[in-house]
């Protein structure tokens, strides 16, 4: 009996997991890159560290909520099954979420940290000895987090791509596509956060984000294209699966909303913003509204990508 089993909760989870992975990756990069012994992009690093844990935490909650027996979710951690992408992913997710929270803690401003511990009720006062300055852990955590953030980003794609019964998914390109989409949405989330902040923008840092995002979007674009070309040149089941986005029910969503508005339009906006830097080595002109708009479009595009893949994939099958 053919049914759509993974619905909007899974779409949200795949998006949020990827988003955290992207945010953390960029934040970690910003932590890792140093100038004169100091992080080169401190605001990106801190913002990223502050933001990264929450989407994945919410996503994991949705994932558990989607289970038929949510209270049995712990069973995921009683087994390690290397053949099951979900098993590997659960472990990755667990470690990654731990790292994001550790990094969050390490990046928490001292004042905020003290205030946090001040809230503790008397009975839990003994916890106050954990009110430690972990700023020295920031770089090690960033370095430790790289593989796990990439892992989580890529795993959301592997989860789908490893299913050989769904020709729409069954190519390793889906993993890369989801990874770059994750990195791009993470970057966009940081652009958005920096853009809506009242503090004036630091051109150097925003340029860094733009550069990254342009790279990620371009990479994503050049994975989506071969995905389509490969599919069209593949066996009939894959060709028929691709009809779902080539004339089928997800055509408009895929081409207009994902490819057009979620990928190419923000790419164009970001390139336009960067034009002075690229062509004249001048300072980039920066428009907060435009930046926020482009970031928003990237996020929407990333969400739609998950949506289209989750639903269309389940509709595809061999005949």
């Amino acid at each position: 009996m053919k049914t759509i089993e993974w619905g909007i909760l899974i779409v949200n989870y795949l998006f949020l997991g990827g988003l955290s992975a992207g945010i953390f990756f960029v934040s970690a990069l910003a932590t890792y890159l140093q100038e004169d012994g100091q992080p080169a992009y401190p605001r990106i690093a801190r913002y990223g560290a502050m933001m990264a844990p929450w989407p994945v935490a919410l996503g994991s909650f949705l994932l558990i909520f989607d289970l038929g027996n949510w209270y049995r979710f712990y069973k995921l951690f009683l087994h390690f099954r290397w053949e099951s992408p979900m098993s590997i992913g659960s472990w990755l997710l667990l470690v990654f979420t731990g790292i994001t929270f550790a990094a969050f803690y390490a990046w928490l401003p001292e004042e905020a940290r003290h205030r946090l511990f001040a809230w503790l009720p008397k009975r839990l006062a003994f916890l106050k000895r954990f009110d430690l300055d972990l700023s020295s852990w920031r770089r090690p955590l960033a370095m430790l987090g790289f593989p796990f953030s990439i892992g989580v980003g890529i795993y959301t794609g592997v989860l789908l791509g490893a299913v050989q019964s769904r020709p729409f998914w069954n190519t390793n390109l889906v993993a890369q596509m989801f990874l770059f989409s994750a990195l791009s949405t993470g970057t966009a989330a940081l652009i958005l956060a920096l853009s809506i902040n009242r503090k004036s923008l630091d051109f150097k840092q925003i340029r860094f984000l733009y550069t990254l995002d342009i790279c990620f979007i371009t990479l994503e674009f050049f994975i989506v294209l071969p995905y389509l070309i490969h599919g069209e040149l593949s066996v009939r089941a894959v060709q028929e699966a691709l009809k779902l986005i080539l004339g089928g029910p997800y055509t408009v969503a895929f081409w207009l909303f994902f490819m057009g508005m979620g990928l190419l339009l923000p790419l164009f906006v970001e390139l336009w913003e960067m034009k002075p830097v690229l062509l004249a080595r001048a300072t980039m002109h920066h428009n907060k509204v435009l930046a926020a708009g482009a970031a928003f479009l990237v996020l929407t595009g990333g969400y739609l990508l998950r949506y289209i893949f989750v639903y269309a994939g389940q509709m595809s099958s061999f005949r």
Partner: protein
Amino acid sequence: MADKGKKKRYALVLDSKKCMNCKACVVACKAENGVPVGKFRNWIDEEKRGSYPRLLMTFDPGQCMQCENPSCVRVCPTGASWQRPDGIVLINYSECIGCRYCMIACPYDARYFREDLGVVDKCTFCVQRVDRGQLPACVETCPSKVRVFGDLDDPNGELQDLLSTRRYLVKKPETGNGPQLYYLL
């Protein structure tokens, strides 16, 4: 089925031409296995072609293929889906967390979600009957005896006889799952 110890490989051979779409197998399964209304462990696919008065109508019973290389077992994160040495793929309900990854991984859409138990369920070849030497409910109840159940590894069994002398096909062999339902041509 009585002699234990000997290696077995349970499979079904189906002669779909004899299927009348009477649904006896579907209801027998429902009764035997307590399948909820609206859910099915087995089903009958129809194919219709042509225009009046040149028409074709064929029926194809389907259910879990009890694959040699089951993708559902592979993707299961907790090991709830497992395979017996005799090839029957089963679900350990107390280990199933209800993630439904196996449903998505099954090329035959043979699994369904049981809302009341929060677990995934599917055809078990009626192990509870087979282990007592009975036939699966769908096999037994069929008016035209479309299905033949047996042990592939039995050199003198009916399955070997049919598969040696008749042409057959398996469904979606390209997925590599190694389905163990053999459809006679």
